[in-house]
């Protein structure tokens, strides 16, 4: 577990640096057990920072989400570093972003958090719907400990653990300037059993399955906005000329949208699970991403977000790539 005083001390040092503009970390949420992103601009604000298993957000998103106001003539843009706290999975987003030239390594200062797993907040919420909080969550051994309203509850880890953590192979950040704790050894593997189960169903079953999910989509594009890899400044989903996906919400456009989004992440999605987490109508977006992830790994031996200098999956090839499907 990350020592909070050390976290804050480190943050204080970093945000005091001349060359650092802001620090993105976590703070307590407004209700229940929630934590949420915190933006720190001066040393006086560091005491709000926390880290615990409720810190689910992938903060790497904010590095590419920044909306740059036009710099008034005669002024210089603020190009100071952004410091960001990342867990293992989140760090892969940084690696992938840098592999895609989104920014240079020296534009960010990475505070790495070796991660023992975060909770699935929906599961927590389902168990404790009435807690206004603030509630605290921590991990002790193989149990999550929840403290709220003067009560303490222990819940076995796997009951609340986020699905992505059950498969995480990179709990320790792959890139960092400071590491806040001892490295954590990978405690899980991925067998893609979920993907395989779906693969093995009949075409019509699969379609029925997805049709039901896609029909719920309200096209809020939260899944895109939260995705650290979706940082195009003019996403094709918003484009009018040409209009790839219509704004109208029906099964055709919804499906096309879901294909476009997932396919755009082929070889880029780093499995942080944020898209699925944010989806208000609980579309299992990770099942889409994971299918592509699995194929990419099996067919091309490619894993996104682990090497900064890896060539992009779809901008490279091997002469002997599989072509069993070609006539």
């Amino acid at each position, binding site marked *: 577990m990350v020592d909070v005083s050390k976290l804050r001390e480190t943050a204080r040092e970093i945000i005091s640096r001349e060359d650092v503009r802001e620090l993105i970390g976590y703070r307590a949420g407004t209700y229940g057990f929630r934590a949420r992103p915190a933006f720190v601009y001066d040393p006086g604000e560091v005491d709000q920072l926390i880290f615990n298993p409720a810190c689910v957000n992938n903060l790497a998103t904010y590095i590419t989400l920044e909306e*740059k*106001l*036009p*710099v*008034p*003539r005669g*002024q210089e*843009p603020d*190009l100071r570093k952004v410091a960001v706290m990342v867990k293992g999975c989140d760090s892969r987003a940084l690696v992938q972003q840098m592999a*895609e*030239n*989104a920014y240079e390594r020296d534009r960010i200062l990475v505070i790495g958090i070796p991660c023992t797993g975060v909770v699935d907040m929906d599961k927590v919420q389902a168990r404790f719907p009435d807690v206004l909080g603030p509630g605290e969550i921590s991990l002790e051994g193989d149990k999550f400990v929840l403290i709220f309203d003067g009560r303490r509850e222990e819940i076995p880890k796997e009951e609340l653990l986020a699905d992505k953590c059950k498969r995480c192979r990179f709990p320790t950040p792959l890139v960092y300037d400071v590491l806040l704790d001892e490295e954590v050894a990978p405690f899980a593997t991925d067998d893609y059993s979920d993907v395989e189960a779906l693969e093995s169903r009949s075409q019509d079953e699969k379609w029925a399955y997805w049709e039901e999910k896609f029909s719920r989509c309200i096209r809020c594009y939260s899944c895109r906005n939260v995705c650290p890899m979706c*940082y*195009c*400044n*003019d*996403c*094709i989903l918003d*484009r009018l*000329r*040409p209009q*790839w996906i219509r704004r109208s919400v029906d099964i055709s456009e919804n499906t096309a949208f879901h294909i476009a989004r997932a396919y*755009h992440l082929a070889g880029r999605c780093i499995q942080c699970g944020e898209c699925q987490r944010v989806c208000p109508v609980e579309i299992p977006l990770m099942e889409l991403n994971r299918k592509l992830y699995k194929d990419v790994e099996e067919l091309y031996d490619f894993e996104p977000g682990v090497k900064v200098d890896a*060539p*992009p999956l*779809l*901008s*490279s090839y091997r002469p002997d790539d599989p072509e069993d499907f070609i006539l």
Partner: protein
Amino acid sequence: MNGKPKIGVYVCHCGTNIAGTVNVEEVRDFAASLPDVVVARNYSYMCSDPGQALITEDIKNYGLNRVVVASCSPRMHEPTFRKTLESGGLNPFYLEMANIREQCSWVHEDPIAATEKAKRLLEAAVVKARNLEALEQKEVDVEPSCLIIGGGIAGIQAALDIADAGFKVYLVEKSPTIGGHMAQLDKTFPTLDCSACILTPKMVDVANHPNIELMTYSQVEEITGYIGNFNVKVRKKARFVDMDKCTGCGDCAEACRLAGRIPNEFDEGIGMRGAIYLPFPQAVPAKYTIDKENCLFLAKGKCGETPKCQEVCQAGAINFEQQDEIVEFKVGTIIVATGYDVFDARKKPEYGYGIYDNVLTALEFERLVNASGPTGGKIVMLERGKKKKKKEEEAEAPKVPKSITFIQCVGSRDKSVGNEYCSRVCCMYTAKLAHLVKDKIPDCEVTIFYMDVRAFGKGFEEFYDRVRREGVRYIRGNPSEIFRRGDKLVVKAEDTLTATPLEHETDMVVLSVGLVPRSDNREIIDILKLSQSSDLFYLEAHPKLRPVDTASDGIFLAGVCQGPKDIPDAVAQAKGAASAAMIPMAKGKVKVEAQTSVVNEETCRGCGFCVELCPFTAIELVEVNRQGWPVKVARVNEALCKGCGACVAACLSGSIQQRSFKDNQLLPQIKVLGVK
């Protein structure tokens, strides 16, 4: 273009070729009903003069700004109709064609289905045409100079031609001398000219030509740019001999402590040299080179008290401090003439090459029969292991073989070693070598095992006849094994003409090894991004019509690097490449692909996916100012872009688009064709 698209549609009958199956009137009427079509006509032959005149007239009368021709394949007449538009005063890229012949009337018998399909294809052309844009066929200036890589006969010939025409030539040769393989040969088939006699004058011409800058012992390191404007970086390897001072007297080579102890590459290892050497007496330039891998002083730091060569060189040319030198220059065109390697006979262990001293490759044998070779042209039995022969012991005269056996097609036409192709020269050089044997040792028994004899060239068949008449025995059969029996070699084979197995005893076996791509081919491939054909020789742009061009404009091929050929063919191709290279140089300008890609720098996110993928390195990331912020965006070098569009499909945000194949031009087509 401002204003409304005004489309003219022209449906060609192509005699009955189209009209026989497709109801052209119906197609025309359908076309006329489409939005923005202001005139639709059908005509017997659109490509004829009157047909084209219809278009130019309509452009004038109706103010057409787009033209759609439904006729044969655009691969056939797109250039024709582009010109038509141009002569009608319209940008030629406002043309779109619908292929209703090759891909419709000729392949579908049912007139109803064919007419229906023709309509759809036409509609797709019309909706694409709506969004076509005028393109500018840009021109770039061409630097009037040429880089030639490889100084074999092909490179030499090309260099001389281009230099004679008045253009500057940079000839870069990897080895210490030019000449290539031809310099190693004794006589050349079928005319039996002495190879050196015809080659060395050319080599000297190269050295003396005011327009040729010769760089031997040099390697191309990097080439950027595009036709007309290549920037070349060449590494001149240190020879440790001052080229200006060396008089080529050869005192150093004699003095070298390693003299006669290092196998001479030029002699295919049959002859020996020292650490300082001249590959062969007529080498150009006639300047010595120290081989730094072997030189005691350079490799070990010590060579006696003082290095011998330095001691004896009166000109003071030896300079152990010499460094590689990088030179940079700009050229307009490039000719690649890097030649070949011979097949490594060790890959056919059944023939015992590398095991038995007197199993030779033909190239080794060329050195053996060569008057300026290690034996002075005497054909003798080899004792390969014993290298440390002292001069005094030379007394013992080497043995002369009484029978010599050639085996053809070693490493050619042989799937088991991956070379399916015919090397084209082996039949003839074998005949030549057989003749030379007969010439030098008239009583030597000469046998040639062959699969077939391919004597297709000018004077070849006659030469082959002559050799047979000289008593050379041709046995049709592919030997399966060579082994030693006593002091003889035994060739085990089957005479396939008589279907008799045989064991043939001989003193010496010469393997007619085939020509294979150079083992270091990749260097040039990586630098120039050349492609290879399936035999791994460099790939020409078109096997018939553009045999000296490559896929990259301004880069040409000459000689065996493009595929096996003999000297006359290599020279002919070199001349072809030279003239191809001279066309843009003579014009001084060259048109570049117009249907190139272009980046919307406003929306590009600078991910570099396109950069990474472009086969022609046409895209780079540049930093631009976006509302005061420095951001990276992709930028296409239009002179380099070949217009494949691969980058377009890779760009997630649709920021890069290929002109004439933009998303907003293809998507409407999909829409139209998707409909049943």
